[in-house]
């Protein structure tokens, strides 16, 4: 479904000296996969996530989506792709304050042509078991609940790809496991997920683990079903 070919990203420090954040990364993700991208901080995983999510452009390489090069699309087409094909989940949730869970989930629909916004949003919140919290504001929700609102927001437009950047980074262990199990069931229902994390345990819920180190890909392995089940049992 998506394919990165020899992607590099170089930043310029304010001093002018270049920093290579990604170096020649190639990655192919098939529809229905659950991929975890792991690495220490500074390994380039957030940069990879930004490029995957069309939040930033690579300095070299080709990024295609079902065969179509998406890096050359104009800004509005990229915005449309983010709106329709990609759902984002961030470490710090990025929910609008003073705004109810329902209204937060509605946001992506506001930028689309979809109708019956309220119904779709309600359904997305039902799917993450927040039916009784739809009129709560972020400040009235726990961290785990806030992240579930963010997941509902990411799902509301029925995207092809769910991109999660350290989604459990701000959560306690039980909330983190709860979130990652949610991902697992979403994946079982056919959703393609790319999860970025520095936490090996969280990564082990995925079907495939890609390792980054110093901007280079240093590992790509499939997780056997048995290890995954063991992890879930804990």
């Amino acid at each position: 479904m998506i394919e990165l070919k020899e992607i590099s990203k170089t930043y310029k420090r304010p001093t002018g000296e270049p920093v290579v954040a990604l170096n020649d990364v190639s990655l192919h993700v098939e529809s229905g996969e659950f991929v975890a991208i792991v690495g220490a901080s500074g390994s380039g995983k957030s940069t990879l996530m930004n490029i995957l999510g069309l939040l930033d452009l690579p300095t070299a390489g080709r990024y295609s989506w079902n065969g179509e090069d998406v890096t050359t699309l104009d800004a509005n087409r990229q915005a449309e792709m983010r709106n329709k094909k990609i759902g984002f989940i961030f470490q710090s949730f990025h929910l609008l304050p003073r705004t109810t869970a329902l209204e937060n989930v509605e946001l992506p629909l506001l930028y689309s042509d979809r109708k019956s916004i309220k119904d779709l949003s309600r359904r997305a919140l039902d799917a993450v078991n927040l039916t009784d919290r739809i009129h709560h504001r972020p400040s009235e929700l726990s961290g785990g609940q806030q992240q579930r609102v963010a997941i509902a927001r990411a799902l509301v437009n029925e995207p092809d790809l769910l991109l999660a950047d350290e989604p459990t980074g701000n959560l306690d262990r039980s909330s983190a496991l709860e979130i990652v199990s949610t991902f697992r069931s979403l994946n079982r229902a056919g959703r393609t997920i790319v999860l970025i994390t520095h936490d090996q345990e969280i990564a082990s819920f995925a079907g495939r683990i890609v390792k980054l180190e110093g901007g280079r890909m240093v590992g790509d392995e499939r997780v056997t079903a048995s290890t995954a089940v063991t992890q879930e049992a804990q």
Partner: protein
Amino acid sequence: MKNARLARHSLRMMSRYKVRTGFMMLGSVIGIAGLTFVIAVGQSAQRKILKTVGQMFGDSGIVIHDGGGQMMGGPHGPGTRLKIDDIAAIAKEVPGIEAWDPMQTITASVRHGDSTDNAAVFGESERWPQVWNRTASRGDLFDETAVTGSARVAIIGETVAKALFGSDDPLGADIQIGSVPFKVIGVLEAWGTDPHGMDRDNEVIVPISTLMRRLTNVDTISAAKLVVTDAGRSDEMKAEMKRILRERHGLTSGQPSDFSIITATEIRRMVAQVQRVLFFYLPLVAVIVLVVGGIVSASLMLASVNERIAEIGLRRAIGARSQDIRLQFLLETTITMLAGGVGGVIFGYAVAQLGATRMHLDGVNPWMAALLGVAASSLVGLLAGVLPALRAARLHPAEALR
């Protein structure tokens, strides 16, 4: 459909930040209110001064006042010795005098039946309508025979008419000024109040001979106005008048004059000075107020935009295009500044009206101030609210989210 939905969403978002929005509006309310107040009152005061001066002096008037010393409002010297004959002599000796009118005034109680009014009673010649550029709106004026015969006829102002007659017709009615009976022959054209707060409609005009003989029993006049044919020569004419009057009053070279002469030319110089203040300093004050209000709004907006860069990043990440962000911030800023602007104009106008009433000004007109104020607050909104938001919207979403 989509834009309307986004617009509704933006309004809902604004209502979540009432205090922030309120303070942004307040900055522009204060700025624009100050501007409206200063400009409205300034313009109105200027109009009033020009109107008063215009009526008193016209283009080519010279006013001779009894008593020496300073010009209008200054202390008058001892002994009023100005007489009608003095002015008649001037009119005869100085060429280029078109018309003249002597004047004497007292404050007296005016009665009709049980109603009383304290009014300024002016004695004038039959030439006053022409010389003072004032007339009756109803009834008649008096003529030369009335002046030579000391007729007991009066032209009353609207305020006097209202006080004595209510809504009845005063024409032909008998009134008493002091204890002397007069017949009302006309009603003065309404004028309003002058810059000193005097109600110029609370006046009665009678023949000067009648006033001097029957009401005051003096042979002097308080002032006279002369209309000259060539205003350009008024300085020389003033010198000539001064010479004649000093000679007639037997003043030696060391003695101060017991009269004063003001020409329209001198008054125009004074008015020009006043206008410089009104034209330059008042707008300056207004602009300072506006700038202060603008800075308050601008800093709040800048702070708010910076606070909201992450929000802009998120919106971009979930599919907002640059123009969607632009729409949102343009709408928010427009509404804030427009509401602030309208509030400021209303508030400033209310304060200006209050001030105008106290200062006896009329016709406060805030349109110029309103336009200027709304333009200024739009500029502030654009620079401090919209531009930074647009810059943020053009960032790559990843940068805005960081």
